[in-house]
């Protein structure tokens, strides 16, 4: 039976933890609050160490807070991250996405910085500033950076944040062998700016109910033995992991059987492991390829998603080619799988715009299988802690109660 306006806006007959108010996806004030309360406070990956392998290599990145960052491997081989922001007049320092430089010089007035972030040259310093400005006070803003857990470059722009290990907790233990057996090396990168809310991408990555969407996933997993035996596990700080299974890649018409016999060091052949880290990251190992999603939320209805693919450093040429082909044929911008997920969250946002007249969004599946939506519920529990608001009633004003 269709619903009238009152019925449409009525709370579902579920616990408040099992649905969210659609305005958490559309409200601009909430989005700005998320930026202050979450994005500027938690750890996130901005790139991988293999994107800056040599001394002087730099990589321009965008942090989820919106800030432009410059990740630099110093002459001492240490990786540091700075605001990509000249101390003089605020110009962007590095314009290219990546490069190599022993000195980073602003194109505007030629102020220069070394790879440790020290200001090493101010043009006509004495003439212009006499002794009023010192180079030692004009260094770059360095942000908390740690390289690890698979060689990823983790950043937190809050100087007072806790340690990375505390934030990650035991959530990545499930991939510990695979992330440490051999160093990873990036093989693919692309970005999509999607007109949708970042949490909808995270939701999609953490609920496997949407396997019904993908022809590829239906064939290799959903209809295969072991699929329903998998479970979703929750970890401290809103993180989630999903049990593995042996995917039947040969069941999909477009797969190359040869590449799928290739495994991943420390992991099973054809395994499928998935870990979602609050609030914007997803690690997926579907051997022989590894994928990382990171997000930069740009607006309530716009998110930049960066997709990285990884292989194993030291691969033979044949194995490397197989991993690249596998990753890109499924998860590249022309892949069989990724565009389908993106279409879904674009459709959600198109429907939810003007969110105060959208229905509640359900996260209520409790079946004892991989399609239990506990991952999303766990995420919104963490979100509520940071935001000091419930996700099912963030403004405390949506009073239409559940039907008796």
């Amino acid at each position, binding site marked *: 039976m269709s619903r009238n306006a009152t019925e449409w806006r009525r709370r579902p007959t579920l616990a408040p933890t099992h649905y969210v108010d659609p305005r958490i996806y559309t409200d601009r004030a909430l989005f700005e609050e998320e930026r202050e309360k979450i994005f500027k406070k938690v750890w996130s990956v901005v790139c991988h160490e293999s*994107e800056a392998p040599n001394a002087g290599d730099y*990589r321009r990145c965008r942090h989820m807070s919106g800030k432009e960052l410059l990740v630099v491997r110093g002459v001492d081989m240490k990786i540091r991250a700075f605001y990509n922001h000249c101390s003089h007049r605020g110009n962007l320092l590095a314009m*290219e*996405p*990546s*490069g190599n430089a022993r000195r980073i010089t602003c194109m505007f007035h030629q102020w220069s910085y070394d790879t440790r972030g020290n200001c090493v040259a101010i043009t006509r310093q004495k003439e212009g500033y006499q002794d009023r400005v010192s180079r030692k006070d004009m260094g770059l803003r360095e942000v908390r950076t740690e390289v690890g857990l698979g060689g990823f470059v983790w950043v937190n722009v809050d100087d007072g944040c806790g340690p990375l290990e505390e934030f990650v907790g035991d959530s990545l233990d499930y991939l510990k062998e695979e992330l440490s057996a051999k160093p990873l090396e*990036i*093989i*693919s*990168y*692309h*970005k*999509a*700016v*999607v*007109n949708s809310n970042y949490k909808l991408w995270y939701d999609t990555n953490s609920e496997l109910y949407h396997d019904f*969407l*993908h*022809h*590829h996933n239906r064939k290799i997993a959903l209809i295969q033995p072991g699929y329903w035996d998998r479970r979703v596990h929750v970890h401290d700080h809103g993180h989630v992991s999903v049990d593995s299974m042996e995917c039947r890649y040969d069941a*999909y*018409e*477009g797969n*190359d059987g040869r590449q799928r016999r290739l495994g991943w060091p420390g992991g099973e052949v054809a395994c499928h492991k998935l870990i979602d880290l609050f609030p914007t990251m997803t690690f997926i190992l579907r051997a022989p390829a590894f994928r990382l999603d990171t997000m930069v939320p740009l607006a309530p209805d716009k998110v930049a998603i960066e997709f990285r693919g990884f292989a194993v450093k030291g691969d033979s040429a044949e194995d490397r080619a197989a991993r*690249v*082909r596998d990753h*890109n*044929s499924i998860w*590249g*911008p*022309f*892949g*069989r799988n*990724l*565009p*389908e997920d*993106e*279409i*879904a969250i*674009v459709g959600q946002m198109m429907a939810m715009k003007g969110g105060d007249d959208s229905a509640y969004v359900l996260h209520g599946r409790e079946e004892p299988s991989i399609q239990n939506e506990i991952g999303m519920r766990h995420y919104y529990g963490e979100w509520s802690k940071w935001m000091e608001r419930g996700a099912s009633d963030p403004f405390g004003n949506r009073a239409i109660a559940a039907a008796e």
Partner: protein
Amino acid sequence: MTTTGTATREPRGEPTGSGFESLAEREKAVRELVARTCLTMDAYDFAGYLDLCHPDFRYTITTYSPELRKDITWLDHDFAGMETLLEVLPLHASDHFLRLVMSRHLGVYTVAYSENDTRAAVVSGLQVFNTARDGGVTELLAVAKYHDVVALEGGEAKLLVREVRLDTRMLGETGSLIPF
């Protein structure tokens, strides 16, 4: 290879090994073949597209990544792989089956023939547009070049190699399940 803009400037006289009656016919066949690959794909006529391809067909989509400072190959198929991919496409959810219509706009830049006249190397400029089914607004999806090799055998032109070399790396909101 010698490069020619028109058949009348061909320096070597009549075509030799390709089986075409005249230079003009050969040139027309090459240019029409490249254009028809776009027309068939625009029409979602995947079987028609494959009919234009040589049995030894090789298809790649490549780009240079300034982020990684190296080339990336996003799609790589031989004839059988391309055939399977196109067969299975309608089973997938694609923006280009749901919301958008894709159209390819092509301009042939150069055509260069091999010494034995059985191959033509063709470079074309390509723009790919999305037109929304709802309302009909058109947006540019991608800018690229086709680097093609056309096989000229028995008076027939077939697409032997196609490298889609992309300038655009951010492909709309959702990428593309359908190859260019």
